[in-house]
Every structure is written in structure tokens, then in C-alpha cells.
């Protein structure tokens, strides 16, 4: 089977590297078409811990990859001004505290906080405490279960990551072709794309096309008319402006997302610079104002001209249609509030590998792929929306819009269960597990009226002591941990690049 990947951004090269490694002797040829004249979006600079599995699956050495992509470790996302102006919390990768008498620790904390100062949820997560102190160590280095109960991801330069994977892919036999698609030929009878024609007249035929062409969806939409499910009524932000700036002195092992009047702003610290962007709803703020908000809230001087992005949240009706699979922004777009862009690329690739066609593409493969990806997108959508609706903010038109919103039933039920008794409606297949929901809901002051009654069955004095011991355990370990920057040095992941400075 011949494969053609259209687009060479993060999605394109991640797909190329995975297919070339995992299906090396099976795929007859992999051709990746990209044009240097088309810039890539590269919004996905922050990732989820799942990315480590992806890299490990390719046999990528962590330190070398981090060095080449200016990567930093990521222990979570700090959310500022979301629940109320002035609030902040970190959504970590991992759980909070340790289960007591079979009941999740946060339920005990709900009771404890009614009886005095037992700290906040953040104090019971090693990842959060380390992040706040700009410290880092690997989970396996923890001396206790609690010190090991966290995950980590990376923050990297998406452009460099794509370049890194390009080298990897080309070594594994992927052929890169420079060019822009000017025409697409498809089989009238089957509806399959048979070839694409490039601006230099080259025609590339393939049995399977993977559309990584970004928002345009050159094959999945422009050619095959997949159709788009518009989720703007739930996630109405539709533009972003991005600019890198000089890095601050301390290297934070976390991403920051700060709520604004008509959207939110990201800050992603890399080794050589800090990435920034302002996602907004143009209904309530002009492009110029949005740019001003961004530029006025940088850690340091901007390193270039702000770059504008336009999008509509939602997903294609079909992620896989005929012989075209859409991966990345061509498949759908959900704002990068929880760093899910690269994760959804990874999900697409993982499912494609498992369902990779044999001699012919079967409707059973496409339906299974579409069913799995639909579920992933919907579950991420609900989690993102939670951030906008779990808030007391009503200080702008955008926040008032969310106050009056009718939520998807799936999210409404989750919030109802939480508010009533701190109950988390779990699922097995989706990016965000219960601790993530707890982090955001409690972090944004969605405090349940009641706690799990089983908590009252535990010996209260012992619970108090255990809680104090947990906090002390974490605080002591964080104190001993290396700074994030030192850790990068020690493992040989520190880049040789000098810090970028504004001209």
C-alpha cells in the first residue's frame, strides 16, 4: 500500500514517523508533501503525558529529543483568573493525596476544610508543589508512593519537533516532496482520491491519503466534502494571536492559561524562549485589542510580530472518509486550553496504526476509526467547556454568555453530580481521568454541597494526622528536588542555544 501524507507540520511528521517505524515492511512507500511557502500553525507546543508513550514507541531518547526541540518538562497547567479574577490553581498530571478507607482523598479534604485549615488540594500533589517551586524530578525518583503519584509531559517548539521527526522519518524511508497541491483527481465510481497534482506538475498517486493540511482540510473537506460539526455554540472563541517572547529567569515546569475578558492567554516556557498566545472570541474584542492584551501581558519583550490565526471549533463529520484520513487540525479544532491538540493527533495515529488497511480499505475500519475519534473529541470538548462554565465570572459579555448557556447533557450530568456530592462521573476511554475533573472543578471554586458520606466513617483525628503527614511528605521531597533548569542540565537535555533576545 502506498501512503501519501499531505502536510508537514506536527501532525504530518508525527504520522510519518509512526507509520515508517511501526509499519516499516508493510507500507510500500510513504510520501510526505509539504510546502515551505505554507506556514504551519504549531499551536501545540504543550503536551499531555501520553506523548511520552509515542516517543518511547519510536525509540526516541528523551534527553536528545528535549535538547533538539528546546523542550522543558511540564507538570501541569496553571489556570489564572478562571473561577474568579485573582484565583489560580494548577491542573496537574496525577492524583491528589492517598485514598483513605477506600475513599478518594479529595472527599476527605472536603470535610477537613469545614473544620479548619488543612491546606488546599494543591498541597497534596507532588507535581503541583514542585511546579510552584520550579522544581522537577522523575516520578521514579520519589521515595514514597505519594512522591511518585504524578505524571509529566513536555513543552517544546512544535516546529523543531516536526523537524526532529522529519529527520527520523526520512531515516526510516519517508520521501519528502516539496510542493503545493493544485489539483486532486478522484475516482468517480469509488469516490476515492487517486492522486494529487503539485504546482510543479508532479502527480502523486497513493492508495491511502492522510490529510494533515491543517484547517483547510484540502482532501477531507475541499475534495471529499466531509462536512463539519460546528461546536461554536459551546466553544465560541474563534481567533488567536500568537507571539514568542524572551524567557524569564526561572524556567517554569508548567504551562499557564490566564482567563481574559474575551478569551484566554497561554504562556509556554521553552528553554530558549517563551511561547504566548491569546485565544479570543472576536464578537467581543477586536483583533487589534486582542493583540494589545497579548503584548501587554508578556513575561518579556516580544521576539517578533504577532501571528494571527482563525478557526472554528468543532470536528469533521468523518475523520476517515473513503481513502482519506484526517489527522490534526484538518480533523477538527478544539482550542489548546488543555494541550489536547497534539494528544488528538496521537490518538488519530494510534487508531490508524491499529486499523491500518490491508489490501483494500474496509467500511468497517473507517466506521470503527470514526466512532473512536468522535468519542475522544466529544469528551475533550466537554472538559474544555467545563473551564468556561465552572466560574463565578460575569464581568464581561463573554463570561455572561457562558452563564446562560445550555450545556451538553453529558457535561450537565457531570456538574450536577459534582455539586451535589463531589461525585465524578467516570469514563474509561478519554483523555481526562477523575483527578483532572476534580482539579478544575475545585480549582474554579465549584465546591460540592456535600461530601461522600463514607468519609464520616473514618476516624477524623487519624485523617487529620494522615493529611498533615501527606503534606509534609510532599513539601520535604519538593524541598530536596533539583530546580527544573538544573535537572535539564543533569540529564543532558539542556540546549546549547543562547536565550533569544528581542532586537
Amino acid at each position, binding site marked *: 500500500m502506498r501512503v501519501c501524507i499531505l502536510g508537514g507540520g506536527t501532525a504530518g511528521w508525527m504520522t510519518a514517523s509512526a507509520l515508517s517505524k*511501526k*509499519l*516499516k*515492511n*508493510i507500507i510500500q512507500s510513504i510520501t510526505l508533501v509539504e510546502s515551505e511557502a505554507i506556514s504551519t500553525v504549531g499551536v501545540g507546543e504543550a503536551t499531555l503525558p501520553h506523548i511520552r508513550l509515542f516517543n518511547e*514507541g519510536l525509540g526516541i531518547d528523551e534527553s536528545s529529543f528535549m535538547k533538539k526541540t528546546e523542550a522543558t518538562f511540564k507538570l501541569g497547567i496553571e489556570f489564572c483568573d478562571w473561577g474568579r479574577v485573582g484565583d489560580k490553581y494548577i491542573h496537574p498530571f496525577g492524583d491528589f493525596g492517598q485514598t483513605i478507607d*477506600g475513599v478518594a482523598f479529595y472527599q476527605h479534604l472536603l470535610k477537613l476544610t469545614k473544620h479548619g485549615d488543612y491546606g488546599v488540594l494543591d498541597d497534596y500533589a507532588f507535581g503541583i508543589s514542585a511546579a510552584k517551586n520550579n522544581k522537577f524530578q522523575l516520578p521514579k525518583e520519589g521515595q514514597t508512593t505519594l512522591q511518585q503519584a504524578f505524571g509529566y509531559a513536555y513543552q517544546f517548539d512544535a516546529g523543531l519537533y516536526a523537524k526532529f521527526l522529519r529527520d527520523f522519518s526520512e531515516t526510516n524511508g519517508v520521501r519528502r516532496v516539496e510542493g503545493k497541491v493544485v489539483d486532486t483527481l478522484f475516482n468517480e465510481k469509488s469516490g476515492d482520491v487517486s492522486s494529487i497534482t503539485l504546482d510543479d506538475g508532479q502527480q502523486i498517486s497513493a492508495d491511502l491519503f492522510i490529510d494533515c493540511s491543517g484547517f483547510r482540510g484540502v482532501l477531507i473537506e475541499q475534495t471529499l466534502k466531509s462536512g463539519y460539526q460546528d461546536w461554536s455554540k459551546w466553544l465560541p472563541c474563534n481567533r488567536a494571536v500568537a507571539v514568542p517572547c524572551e524567557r524569564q529567569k526561572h524556567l517554569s515546569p508548567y504551562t499557564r492559561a490566564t482567563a481574559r475578558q474575551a478569551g484566554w492567554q497561554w504562556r509556554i516556557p521553552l528553554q530558549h524562549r517563551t511561547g504566548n498566545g491569546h485565544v479570543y472570541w472576536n464578537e467581543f474584542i477586536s483583533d487589534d485589542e486582542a493583540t494589545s492584551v497579548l503584548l501587554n501581558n508578556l513575561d518579556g519583550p516580544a521576539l517578533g510580530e504577532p501571528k494571527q490565526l482563525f478557526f472554528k471549533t468543532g470536528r469533521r463529520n468523518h475523520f476517515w472518509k473513503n481513502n482519506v484520513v484526517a489527522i490534526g487540525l484538518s480533523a477538527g479544532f478544539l482550542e489548546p486550553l488543555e494541550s489536547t491538540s497534539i494528544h488528538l493527533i496521537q490518538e488519530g495515529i494510534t487508531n490508524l*496504526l*491499529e*486499523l*491500518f488497511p*490491508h489490501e483494500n480499505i*474496509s467500511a*468497517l*475500519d473507517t466506521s*470503527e476509526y470514526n*466512532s473512536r475519534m468522535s468519542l475522544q473529541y466529544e469528551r475533550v470538548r466537554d472538559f474544555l467547556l467545563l473551564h468556561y462554565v465552572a466560574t463565578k465570572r460575569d464581568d464581561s459579555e463573554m463570561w455572561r454568555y457562558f452563564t446562560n448557556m445550555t450545556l451538553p447533557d453529558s457535561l450537565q*450530568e457531570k456538574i*450536577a*453530580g459534582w455539586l*451535589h*456530592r463531589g*461525585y465524578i*462521573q*467516570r*469514563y*474509561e*476511554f478519554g483523555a481526562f481521568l477523575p483527578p483532572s475533573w476534580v482539579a478544575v472543578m475545585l480549582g474554579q471554586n465549584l465546591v460540592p*454541597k*456535600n*461530601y*461522600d*458520606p*463514607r*468519609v*464520616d*466513617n473514618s476516624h477524623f483525628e487519624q485523617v487529620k494526622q494522615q493529611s498533615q503527614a501527606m503534606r509534609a511528605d510532599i513539601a520535604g521531597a519538593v524541598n530536596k528536588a533539583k530546580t527544573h533548569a538544573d535537572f535539564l542540565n543533569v540529564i543532558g537535555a539542556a540546549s546549547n542555544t543562547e536565550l533569544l533576545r528581542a532586537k
Partner: protein
Amino acid sequence: MSQQDTSQFLVFGNTLAASMTVLALSKALPKSIKLMWVKPATACPSDLLYGGISSPDAYQFNLQLGLSEPQLILDTDTTFTFGTRFDRWGDNDQTWMQCFHLPFAATSGVELHHFMTRHKASLGDFLISAQAGLKGTFAHPPTDNLQSPLSRAEYAYHFEPSQWSAVFYDKIDKARVNVINGDITTLKHSQDQIEYVQLEDGTKLKADLFIDCSGTSSQLLVALNNDFIKQRTVQLKSETQPCAQTGPACRSITGTESGWQSVTPLREKNHLVSLYESSLGYEQTDCQIFTLGHRKKAWQGNCVGIGHTAYVIEPITPAPYILLMKDIERLLELIPVSHEVHVERQEYNRRFLNDVIHAELFHHAAYAGQREVGYGKCEKLDRKITQYLHRGILASYDFEPFNEQDWAILHAGLGRTPERYDRMAEQVDFEQTQANLDRMRAGIAHLASSMPAQHIYLEKLSMYLRDSEKHGQQ
């Protein structure tokens, strides 16, 4: 009733579900919730529907309730089981061992069952629990030797529900639970709320939450709403036969003209259950008649049905036991925090329905394409079977009672062979894999044969446990 208020729960029934539920509640509920158990003198016959087999989770579940494996081994006729051997099952007379197993080993990211398709091998040959079950041998999976194939096996128990009920009952702190021996004769309710129940002696009992564990009669729940969805009617006959020595560490189910017959080895006796399909016109004496199916809602108003009160599933797998554990876990997670139980009820019923439907899928899959037992078209099952047949994909839904291994073993056992396998398997050298598989098959066969027969293992284990008990080591 609120976080601090005193409230009262009433459990009704003389079933395994009742004793397990009462014990679990007594351990988990705060003291502000008082617990009453109205226990009729006669045990409900529907406990027969457990088929005398638990799932591997029983070990941990029992332990949480304060019941250890040694106690079950010493005080009851409990034996170990690696699963169920199906004989002459379905139209094609399939025979296989539906064993319990931890996730299969993967090679280069590809799961074992794909290599079975590629190398035209039989999955059961590579599962120690299947081989040991078939050979009648048993040993506990080691926890300190993860290289041993036996460490991947899982085991459960063959048990007699009345004995387990008694053991659970003994564990209940009678100072915590007000056990009332008696039966409910009448029930007063308005709309979907039970006001009180009245006992034979005229005593009226009120409660904030009624927990109906009365078995298939659903005495309390049925008064509020009869939303039982019937699937088919069967007749079950039960008998016990003494035997010279304890049987193998697996139950057997044999397909018959009229349904099936199971043999469950207990200590020096076998429990035989025969199922007759009513639709086939077999009229049997000494049988209990059950209508299989489930309720749409297990929690109505202020009454929750646990176990067979809420669903009736034939015991060809441990599904009835698995669902009972899930019922109890779900109830514990959703113990009401106030008089307003809308949130708890809705979530309980959502999870309940998913669990029951997903358990039924497994059973339907065992019959699918084999013979007509009245199951209609089901999109979820179609997806599972077509995806498996197409390329060995084990399509899953959230928190199914049966895991991917169970499904892979069932499909393979029923002779379902995928047309294709995971393409990534092609990356692995064929000859080398074949040699590895041959070695693995031989190693597992040898290991299964070298393990002791279950009766010998149990004798030695019991002796060891008694000695330990004497010397206070337990």
C-alpha cells in the same frame, strides 16, 4: 436526612445479595445512618442463579469486607476455579475453556490473539489458566515470580451461596445492624415512595432508603414500578452429588438438546444445574422457572434493587456475581447525602443499565449465530462481533464487566476466526515467532501438568491453614 442527620436504611431479603450488601453497608456507612435488615426465615431460591461461581475480583472484594480466603477454604465447601469449560456448546458443538487471565502479553505492541490468527494457533494453548483448568490442576499464581506464566493466571471460587451468606452474616456486627428475623407481609406506598413495610407480627417499619435484596420476587421494588424487560423463560433444576474427591479447578457447562447442564466442583461434591429452554417445549419436574431479563431502573423512588431483584441472568458465566459486586460498589459510591436523591438515583440507574447491558452482551455473544434464544439485533454486539471477525479488534465500551481477555477467549472458543490480524504483527519475524510460540505452548502444557490436582492442593492448603491457625500465624 443531610450530611449530619440521622437516617435509616432497611435491607430486605434472605439472599447472598442481602448478606453481602448488609455487611458492606455496615462497614462503609457512617454511624448516623442506622441499618436494619429484615431477614425472612427461608432463603430465596433464586440464589441458584449465581451458578456457584465468582469472578476473580471476589478475593479483594471479600477481603475488604473482612473475609479472608483461608476462612472460606476452611469454613465452607469453596474450591478454586480457573473458569468454565464449555463442552458441545451451540450448533457447532464447540469446546473450550473460558478461563480467567490477566492482559495477554504483547509482542512489539501487538497482542497475543493477533498472533493466534497469524500462526493459526489456538489461544487456549497459551493460557495457563485454560490448560490447568482442563487438566484439573491448581496452584496459586505467584506474586514473586513474574517470569512464570502462572503469574498471569487469575482464579476465582466455586461456592455455595447459602454458605457464603452464612459467613457474611457471621461477619456482621450485630450491634451495628438491627437484624429482624421476619417477613414483610404488606407494604404501604404512595407514588414512588415506600412509606413503610409491615411484618407478619404487625410491626411497621419506616426507612429513608429501602434496599430490596429479595431476589427474583422483587417484593419491594415491584410495588413501585414493574419495568422488567423480559427476554426469555428458562427452567432450572439443581441437585448435589457427593463424590470421592474434589473435582477440577474449573466448572463445566455442556450444551444439551434442551439447554445446558453445569457441574460445579465443591469440596467432595458436585453441584449440578440443568437449564431447560421453555421455548423448546421441555416440561420438567422439580424445576424453578425464571424469566430472564432486567429492569429499566433498579432504583425507584426510595427503593433500590440489588442482585436478582433488578436482573435475572442465566449463570453461564460469573456475570450474576460480577453484577452483584458492581451493584454494591455503585450503592456505596452513591449513598444518599440528603432526602433529595435525584442525582444518586439517576447516576445509579445510568451505571446499572450500562453494566447489565454490557454483561448481557457477553452472554448474547455466546449464543450469537449459534441458535435462536430470542435476542434481538444489538448495535453494540454487532460492532464487537464484526470488528473481531474483520481483523481481531476487541471493540470495548466504558467499564464493561467482561474485559478484553474474556472477549478474546470467548470469540476464539466459539470458533470465531478473524479474517485478518493487526498489521504490526507482520513486523515480527514469522519463523522466530513460531518457534517462540511452540516453546511457550510446550512450557505451559508442562507447567499445567506439573501442578497438583485441585483436591491435593486443597488438602495440603487446608492442612497448612489449620496448622497456621493453631499457631496463631493467620
